[in-house]
């Protein structure tokens, strides 16, 4: 990234500034700092929201800029979560098991420790053997590598197959949805090696930091999420800002023209698809330790469609639009479904938002598509003249 790029991208500078300010405010108000204006659970919610914003900008790049309506990016998010979750669960169970075995007169053999961990983790699915995919679960470094590699490789292989046979448009969307469905169905099986529909749990307990209060841990994760979002924003602003962005948007608007200009469209699509998948994986790896639990339902195709909804409402083709959409809709959603919104008494019927929020979301989504195709971000275009 050149200096010129950073200075000339004023909207990005503005975003980074705002993000920094927000992080500072949350930090000052958090329980860990002693003020307690913002509860720990709210810090967690905000941290999770930042992760959702990160995957939303990834979605915006792949859909808003490159025109691939992927209904599978939440699957990559989930894979990232599973990858880090495996280490968290393994390491924590190892601590517990070692402690309990240490009370015996005879010190345990390594095989006994492994067996006990296996029984602890896989007892719920009636097994105690470690599946092959857990081979690296004891190593944080390797599992972090998995966070990047597994979504990356999956996206690479899937994208190569799909783009090579020139599947585009609605077909491609359906195909990505099928991929997501296959993955979630696979994870739902007990013998998937990832605890079936129980998923991985207890992820909020970070091994080695048992004595650190959750208030501190959640704040650190909040910082991590903010940092990741900031870096991700810069990365994508760089990708879509230069010649790459020009070509990618060209592919979105007229794929054939780009092809006849001599660009290998497949390569570009694959690059964007894979890069955004990797970022999605990283976002997931930051999200799930804050959520505490991950299960296959999180990966179901519907989640990826919601992701598209956020980006559409926020405004496609502008990165800050994706951030606005993801933050607004996910926060509103937890406010409405969490019973935060007051019921409306119409006299003959009481509107309970826990029941009606999805109806409202669905209808407002249709309205945004119909009347404001540029989303909320489109409004900004009227207010702020984007510098060229």
């Amino acid at each position: 990234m050149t200096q010129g790029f950073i200075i000339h991208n004023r909207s990005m500078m503005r975003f980074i500034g705002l993000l920094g300010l927000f992080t500072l405010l949350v930090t000052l108000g958090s329980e860990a700092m002693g003020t307690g204006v913002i509860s720990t659970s709210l810090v967690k919610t905000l941290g999770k929201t930042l992760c959702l914003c990160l995957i939303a900008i990834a979605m915006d790049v792949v859909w808003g800029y490159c025109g691939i309506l992927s209904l599978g990016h939440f699957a990559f998010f989930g894979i990232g979560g599973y990858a880090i979750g495996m280490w968290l669960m393994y390491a924590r169970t190892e601590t517990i098991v070692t402690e309990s075995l240490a009370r015996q007169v005879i010190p345990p053999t390594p095989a006994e420790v492994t067996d006990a961990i296996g029984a602890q983790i896989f007892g719920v699915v009636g097994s105690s053997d470690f599946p092959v995919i857990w081979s690296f679960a004891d190593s944080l470094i390797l599992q972090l590598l998995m966070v990047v590699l597994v979504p990356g490789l999956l996206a690479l292989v899937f994208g190569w197959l799909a783009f090579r046979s020139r599947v585009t448009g609605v077909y491609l969307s359906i195909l990505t949805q099928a991929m997501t469905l296959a993955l979630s169905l696979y994870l739902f099986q007990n013998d998937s090696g990832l605890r079936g529909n129980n998923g991985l749990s207890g992820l909020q307990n970070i091994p080695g930091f048992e004595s650190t209060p959750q208030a501190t841990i959640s704040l650190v994760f909040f910082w991590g999420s903010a940092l990741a979002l900031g870096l991700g924003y810069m990365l994508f602003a760089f990708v879509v800002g230069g010649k790459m962005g020009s070509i990618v948007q060209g592919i979105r608007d007229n794929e054939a023209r780009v092809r006849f200009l001599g660009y290998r469209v497949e390569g570009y699509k694959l690059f964007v698809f894979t890069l955004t998948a990797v970022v999605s994986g990283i976002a997931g790896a930051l999200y799930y330790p804050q959520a505490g639990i991950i299960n296959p339902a999180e990966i179901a195709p519907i989640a990826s469609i919601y992701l598209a909804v956020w980006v559409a409402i926020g405004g496609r083709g502008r990165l800050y639009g994706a951030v606005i959409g993801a933050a607004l809709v996910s926060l509103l959603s937890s406010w409405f479904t969490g019973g935060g919104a007051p019921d409306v008494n119409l006299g003959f019927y009481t509107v309970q938002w826990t029941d009606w929020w999805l109806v409202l979301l669905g209808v407002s989504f249709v309205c945004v598509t119909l009347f404001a195709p540029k989303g909320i971000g489109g409004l900004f275009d009227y207010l702020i003249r984007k510098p060229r």
Partner: protein
Amino acid sequence: MISLLEVSGVSKTFDGFRAINNLSIQINEPELRAIIGPNGAGKTTFMDIVTGKTQPDSGQVLWGERNESLTGLSEAEIANRGIGRKFQKPTVFENQTVRQNLAMALKNPRGPLAALFFKEPRTDAVRINEIAGEIGLADQLPRPAGELSHGQKQWLEIGMLLAQDPRLLLVDEPAAGMTAEEREKTTDILKRAARTRSVVVVEHDMEFVRRLNCKVTVLHEGHVLAEGSLDHVTADPTVIDVYLGRSDA
């Protein structure tokens, strides 16, 4: 003059419809060539086959001094060998500026990583201004292409082809929907381009073809009916039969 493109014995059938039937055409370098023919004569399919959009059922498409076969190559590979194509409808990137449109077409490394870390050399800006002057859009560079008039979009697309610096330009109905004045300018652009490279123009409009003042190939039902100067082919009785003897001329 050397032979740049040699199409020999090419046939293509779409669900029983013979779009191209044992077609053989040879294009030299440099050369300006017009291809005319009634609807369904196979003009567009001919271009599709040369540019790799459609694979021929049989026959050969040979390219350059080394007579390399173009069949089986992808569109991008063929484009990078030096064949530029203009579509019938103007296809420019309407959301991007004229400058961005031209910059994208400029001859530079085409890989994703090269594009990601691309830093525009000073020579590129000079070249863009040059081409913009050539197509008469020098003062339109910062405008989004979507705001241009129909004719200007056609020129921008031709400009993008020139920016690719191709050896062969395939131009599909460049004058469609243009005013008389715009046509004249288009003719000039094409004639100038044909001084250093080969340009093949597919056109309906006889007046336009006459102004190009070049060798003409008449296609009919997927094969070459006549070839030569415009006066020569219009005197050919079979051509007259095809164009005048039928109601769709």
